[in-house]
């Protein structure tokens, strides 16, 4: 009798565990949008600020180097800080070693190419680290967001410069 209950118990446990895993896997897959790119792990920290990135899935940004190593950020702002001074945060690497850069589209919540994204500045939406560059995959959604959230301007990747990124760190 007792062995039956034990087996039942184990079965229930296993089912729960499998269901838990099942629920977990598709959630993880969300970050693996571009094929062959390293996936965000729970232990990944932003090399710029040290934050655990998994806590802020809506804000993930990513840089992939040609040696296959990859870094995650809790917002496009910190990704740019790394991009503008690669050697400081990852000694031994250079900007020319970067193969891919991704940011998370604010509306779609999926990784998009950083170099083709549209960034909205000056809106009333704050990221985990305060003022942010909010990434969008196309001009329309960026424009819509700008109007809805009192954004000031929309810029493209080449217009992002270090002084601009640093100016986002103001506290008000």
């Amino acid at each position, binding site marked *: 009798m007792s062995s039956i209950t034990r087996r039942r118990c184990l079965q229930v446990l296993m089912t729960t565990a499998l269901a838990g895993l099942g629920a977990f896997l598709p959630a993880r897959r969300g970050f693996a949008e571009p094929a062959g790119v390293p996936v965000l792990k729970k*232990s990944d*920290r932003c*090399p*710029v*600020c*040290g*934050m*655990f990135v998994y*806590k802020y899935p809506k804000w993930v940004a990513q840089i992939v180097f040609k040696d296959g190593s990859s870094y995650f950020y*809790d917002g496009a702002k910190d990704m740019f800080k790394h991009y503008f001074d690669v050697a*400081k*945060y*990852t*000694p031994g690497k250079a900007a020319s070693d970067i193969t891919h850069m991704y940011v998370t589209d604010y509306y779609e919540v999926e990784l998009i190419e950083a170099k083709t994204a549209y960034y909205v500045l000056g809106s009333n939406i*704050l*990221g*985990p*680290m*305060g*003022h942010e560059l909010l990434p969008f995959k196309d001009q329309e959604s960026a424009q819509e967001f700008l109007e809805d959230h009192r954004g000031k301007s929309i810029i493209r990747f080449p217009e992002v410069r270090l002084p601009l990124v640093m100016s986002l*760190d103001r*506290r*008000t």
Partner: protein
Amino acid sequence: MLLLHPGVIANLLASLIIAVMMLYSAFYGVQILRHWDIESGSELQLVLERKTYLVSTVLSYVFALQLLSLFMYVFTADNLHPLFVGAMCAAGTLNLNAFGYPTLLLKMFNFILAGVWLILNHADNQGYDYPLIKKKYALLAVVAPLILIEALLEFAYFLGLRADVITSCCGSLFSSEQGDGLGSDLAALPPGPMIWFFYGTVFVTLASGLYYYLRGKGGYFYSFASMVFFLTSIVSIISFISLYIYELPTHHCPFCIVMSEYDYIGYLLYIALFIAAVAGVGIATLIPLRGIESLREVIPGLTRKLTMTSLVLFFGFASVVTYRIAASNLIM
């Protein structure tokens, strides 16, 4: 809204209990300081003799709570960080208003004073004729106002938390470049020389402690060395130990190490460090009292115990740090 957070409630409640009990004890403490006369059989003296048992029992619990409250405060600040934009650990939360860091510093200072008071009280209870009664209430007269100020600061901090303020994250508070403030200055200390200085301090402290333990000489020096060890270690955590724990070349924060993601290693390090510092200061507090007749037998045993405690904790601290540096993937 934040007032309903369990951590905030616990902190404010603890602070309130400590403050009220402190006022009650200080009231009798002052009477004892002014009117205590062991030779007298007056009514007042009899009342005071009875009261001192109550007051010192109350105080030993209150000070134990005071010791705990330091870690409770850091734990709560760490716990609150997801609620505030820009905060990623206790460093950002404490920076939300002007009272966060002053409360923390005063709590650290009061931790040591409360610890020393507990040691004095323990020694006093061993003697039959209340040998340290005036000394321990004199110390209380110093500690009580500080603890009351701490309670005020803590209330001002928690009640003044506003959710619409963007705070700075520890990445910028403890950055070696943005050189404004003590945190950045400490982070900017060159890790290379700091490592040598740290291990030099470890060696001198452990050697002098062992010498004192075995030969009974050099107690003041060891006590002083343990204070130096305490301060050096805190500076070292910011300067280089943190880098090895986080495995990030630019992250100097002394608060992120208390998070669960780092296996709460920060609590281990800080608890060892603070208790060892209290024991170290306690030695220099007790040595001048060894001449007192009723404590002649007690003090040497107590100082030996304190020496052993602090030595074990200092050694443990240095071992854990060395292990983390050796096992770290960060290469500098």
